[in-house]
């Protein structure tokens, strides 16, 4: 049993100069074999391990991370959490995640700073407004909170926005999900790691998977930089590198890995209390608790594993931002970076079985992975434990690319070569 975190334990430990705090998680050597191996120590992988132990009693589990926990997209995203998705399948999955977010700090006894400050999606044209209504009404009928704001209401919530009708992209309205917001991304990985470790899961960092041992189409274990490790079941949760792992296992995925760039401004006193997104001009912005404006844009078009994108994306994004928020133009960019997002043709994830027996995959979250973390881990744990997909995961099977039952969350068609 680990120390509980609380104001009281904090005070108690202060008295002897914080000398008695335990490790948040152990650093064990890998055992020869496990019931379940999860490849990928990001938020989704760690959450999967946590729920395997907590809800399915499967604790003989190892999480293998080639670098450091949360070093991938978990620690590189813009921390937005929402469930305002168009199609029923997505809405249910992301709402499942949002409900878990709402109790996550207490469940983990680790403050992930989930802040339900509201998410606003701006509409700039008549067509935007039609699409926005379609989306909001669908979300509402799925029993999820979402509303439509008038420009006046928008101005009230976000006074910094230029709501003048003669703007190049006039603001005609917005959808608003009050239960949406942001969370502290690193804390999510650390909290799940601590919780999983407490329940007996081995978390093994600096352990890169180099191959699979597959006999008669069934996975037996993984080759790693720290030797062979046997496993009854293996779950692959490696986001941008899913294609590489699939390659090792001998199958292909409908994925491309792209850079997704983000940046933060210098910290300033609070000026923006909600998350504002403008899909049309490819900007989303929020202000972190440290005071930094956190900005994201669209993905770079080209394939890349570099965790770095090209300047035009950021330039266009900041160009648009300064037009939406004229006062921001004197603020300064403090740090920019990139992640590697694995995108599906229909902008929806893949959760479930693979052509290899007992090898399961959870990938394709594209730019939307962080918000799904608890839900993704939760349904994937169920899928691993039962060997059958969680009901919410069924529509997201790899199969859909064969049948054509895509869940198109961006309205774009499949890319012909």
């Amino acid at each position, binding site marked *: 049993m680990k120390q509980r975190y609380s104001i009281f334990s*904090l005070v108690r430990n202060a008295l002897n100069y914080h000398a008695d705090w335990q490790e948040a998680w152990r650093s064990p050597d890998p055992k020869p074999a496990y019931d379940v191996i999860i490849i990928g120590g990001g938020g989704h992988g760690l959450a999967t391990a946590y729920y395997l132990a907590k809800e399915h009693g499967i604790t003989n589990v190892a999480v293998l991370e080639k670098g*450091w926990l949360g070093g991938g997209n978990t620690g590189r995203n813009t921390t937005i959490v929402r469930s305002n998705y168009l199609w029923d399948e997505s809405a249910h999955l992301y709402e499942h995640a949002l409900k878990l977010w709402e109790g996550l700090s207490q469940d983990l006894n680790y403050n992930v700073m989930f802040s339900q400050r509201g998410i606003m999606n701006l509409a700039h044209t008549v067509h935007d407004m039609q699409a926005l209504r379609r989306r909001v009404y669908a979300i509402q009928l799925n029993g999820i909170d979402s509303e439509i704001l008038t420009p006046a209401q928008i101005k009230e919530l976000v006074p910094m926005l230029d709501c003048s009708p003669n703007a190049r992209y006039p603001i005609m309205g917005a959808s608003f999900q009050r239960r949406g917001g942001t969370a502290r991304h690193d804390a999510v990985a650390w*909290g799940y790691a601590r919780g999983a470790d407490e329940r007996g899961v081995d978390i093994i960092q600096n352990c890169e998977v180099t191959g699979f041992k597959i006999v008669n189409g069934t996975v037996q274990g993984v080759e790693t930089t720290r030797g062979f490790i046997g496993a009854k079941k293996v779950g692959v949760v490696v986001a941008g590198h899913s294609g590489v792992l699939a390659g090792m296992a001998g199958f292909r995925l409908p994925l491309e890995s792209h850079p997704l760039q983000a940046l933060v401004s210098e910290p300033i006193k609070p000026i923006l209390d909600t998350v504002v997104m403008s899909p049309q001009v490819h900007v989303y912005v929020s202000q972190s*608790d440290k005071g930094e404006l956190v900005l994201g844009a669209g993905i770079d078009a080209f394939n890349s594993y570099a965790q770095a994108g090209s300047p035009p994306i950021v330039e266009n994004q900041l160009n648009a931002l300064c*037009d939406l928020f004229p*006062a921001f133009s004197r603020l300064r960019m403090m740090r920019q970076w990139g992640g590697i997002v694995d995108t599906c043709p229909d902008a929806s994830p893949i959760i479930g079985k693979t052509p290899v027996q007992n090898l399961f995959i959870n990938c394709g979250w594209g730019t939307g992975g962080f918000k799904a973390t608890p839900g993704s881990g939760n349904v994937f744990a169920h899928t691993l434990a039962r060997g059958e997909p969680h009901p919410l995961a069924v529509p997201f099977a790899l199969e859909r690319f064969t049948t054509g039952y895509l869940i198109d969350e961006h309205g774009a068609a499949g890319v012909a070569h």
Partner: protein
Amino acid sequence: MTAQKNRLGQGGRIDRTKPLRFTFDGKTYYGYQGDTLASALLANGVSLVGRSFKYHRPRGILSAGAEEPNALIQLGLGDRTEPNLRATQIELYDGLVAESQNRWPSLTTDFGAANSIFQKFIPSGFYYKTFMWPAKGWMFYEKFIRQAAGLGKGPTEQDPDRYDKLYASCDLLIIGAGPSGLAAALAAGRSGARVILVDEQQELGGSLLSERTAEVDGTSAADWVAGAVAELAAMPEVTLLSRTVAWAYYDHNSVSLMERVTDHLGPVAGAKQPRQRLWRVRAKEVILATGAIERPLVYSDNDRPGCMLASAARTYVNRYGSMPGQRAVIMTNNDGAYRAALDLSEAGVTVFAVVDLRSDPQGELVKAARAKGIEIITGHAITGVKGKLAVTGVDIMPLTADGKGVTSASRHIHCDLVLSSGGWQPTVHLHSQTRAKVVWSDDIQAFVPGNKLPGQNNRSIGGAHGVFGLADCLAEGHAAGSEGAARLGFGAQSGQAPSVSGEPAEGALLPVWIVPSDKPVGQGGKHFVDYQNDVTAADVMLAHREGYRSVEHLKRYTTMGMATDQGKTSNVNALAIMAGLRNVEIPSVGTTTFRPPYTPVTLGTFSGIDKGDFLDPIRKTAMHQWHEQHGAVFECVAQWHRPYYYPKLGETMHDAVNREVKAARTGVTIVDASTLGKIDIQGPDAAWFLNMVYTNAWTKLEPGRCRYGLMLGEDGMVFDDGVTSRISENHFHMTTTTGGAPRVMSWLEEWHQCEWPDKKVYFTSVTEQWSVMALNGPLSRKLLEELTTDIPLDDATFPFMSFKDGHLAGVPVRIFRISFTGELSFEVNCKPSHALHVWRALMQAGEKYDITPYGTEAMHVLRAEKGFIIVGQETDGTITPYDLGMDWIMAKSKTDFLGRRSLTREDTKRPDRKHLVGLLTDNPNEVLLEGGQIVAHVKDRPPMEMIGHVTSSYYSPNCNRSIALALVKNGRNRMGETVYLPYEGKVIPAKITEPKFFDSEGKRING
């Protein structure tokens, strides 16, 4: 004028004939032209300039450059105010207004300092461990945390200043104009190469500007710099950029620079010139001469105002004639700090002692200091700093043999300045930004650039790769410049490497990462590692204890290196301390990857002038001015501005659209359809190609005739549509949707060039070669007849779905008899330069028929009355032709067309997919909202199962009721069913019908 009590009588590069007045926290001071805000404050004896982020500790000025973590300033007022600027980089100008940050009510009495009472309860990561009760409590706590965080204040008004951005190219981009950079620029410049030399400071010269003794080419460093800069300035192919920071190094040698054009002149200058300028440089080769940054030592209470880097003090004295203090003590683990000792005492600062952590330093500088009578206390450490708002003295203790502890015997020295030097870290930021590795050098105990990344072409020279001797830096610079130029084909004269005299040799450095104190670390004073984020050695130990041991976990858990200085003075110290705790080599803890920008860069520079209407072009047709003059309301379609409707005086949108829609079926109307995409297709395989990209058959279409076609993606989903006409056997004229025009053009080229290159066909976009105005309505033929002599308009010679060439109103036109309204309709195509003439002629002749111009909304209503789809409205990338009930356009005879195979996939061929249907509300005046979701069974609250949504919905004055198109699951088998639309707090019943509401037999097409 008020005296500047710490200003030296002479020396420095400031202009004593140009005094400048400025205020700091409301108090007025004076400095000189050439001062930074920091040097001017110090000259005025101001050492307390800020409060720290978390504990609100009083802070002074640590450095003299970009690495400054403490002296962050709120500069300027109102709409021009700027937070978090480094006093060490703010050039002084007359009337400058500066405020300290993160304190209330004042810098000397800051209530926030209460935090330091609780400081033992708020170590790194404390917020992860608490604020979890009650369950929803975080939203409450967060408010206070947000208020407490955030340093300075952002402006809330529109930015009044202008910005500029441009592209530039060169052979060699040299970053840093210190000794090595200048030498490189001279060598390359002389050879005739195109050189851009940038330096972030107001003057080129770098460390040479702070040099008192060493001589270059037989003259003083300052004179040599002046000569070098003059020679470079005279070279036509050399661009010198001072006040310009190279902040990002992107792929393939593209480097971003930010030039501070008028910041140093104060706010007034902004109007005439841009305030700042973004340079996007593409270089053939990049030379990184970015120098090195001195590391502070990590000792107890090393953050007191008056604690400073040794090299910084030397710069203030030598370059600015400004004394950071009167009585100094210096602690060091290397010889470099002795330069400060010598120069400071030369300038008249009392240097009480140099406390050297090494037991027996023997370098020439050490000897020189001794000779000067400066006390040198070897094998000792500063174990504590006295004073809160300013340093009043230090405690010194002898180090134990192993150097890890101190023995009891203590000595106290009164002083107001504590200098430290822990060695130098090369400025490898830009090298690291190329995504190349850095490697650890045991010689200098610092990270140096590793091999360059393939695809990049950069090299680091001088201090930037750990070469610190002046002579060596100049030699390296000269070599890099001439070799670089030679590699790029410039062989000419690059001259001799500059020679240096008076440069003493230096002894070795002793790595000491935590200077021990009489109390265990974390229990006595604070050993700060990251000043700005208040991260101490104890925090690093806590992170280690709790398992946050990789460099990235350390940074993220303690926030070390995440402040506005991005850890320029703290990263290596923190890494080394963690390495010690883990008992491993420093590099195996990890190296931090530096991300852009090197120093923060203004967001406005990314816009340049591209604001407002320049943010994104608005495309206008040839008749745009006419539409404006006639009161059109415009709608944004792709980048086009199209007339939405033309309200007459006092008309609502509803009134206007109804009038326009009625006119189209009773009289004659005109609409500007110029924005439709048009593609000219020529070649013997043109018809074959159309067969591949459209679902229907094209081979048999006769010249002079037109046909409607539907395009699918290879996934079988509807992608675009339009009418294509056969001009001659091998010549077609294709039209596309307005939004789809560019997409379709590249779609055709892609398939032709990549998949069927052997097919003989050429595509040319002619969207803007033609202006298009469509006449609709029973009287349209009558009107045209009046204006043409050579085009027969009767059904026999000019039937529906055909075109004719001829003249209208005296100019050449091509008229298509096609219809998007189901009415008798003629689409007049003419030259854009004639368009206004033709349009006016039609309006004039049409006056007697009360010709009515209409916009996109009326167009939508008219086609909806007929059940014609709009791609992007009835479709969304998930809809097949069968879903739309357009089986008639799917050629059965053809063996192949794009998307064909996908239509037979298991899900795509399902009979019960969503189908396009009509919806009629029970209440004929109720107009459904587009996007409205449809349910078969209403429940008293959500969730409810949705079976489809409304794609188009209007009031139809011709049907005298509302009409709507919708996509409904299995809709074609639900004709007559009543469904419900629950939204906006009401439930609207509607009946499913055929998606046709007017003239379903299509009789009106011939008028």
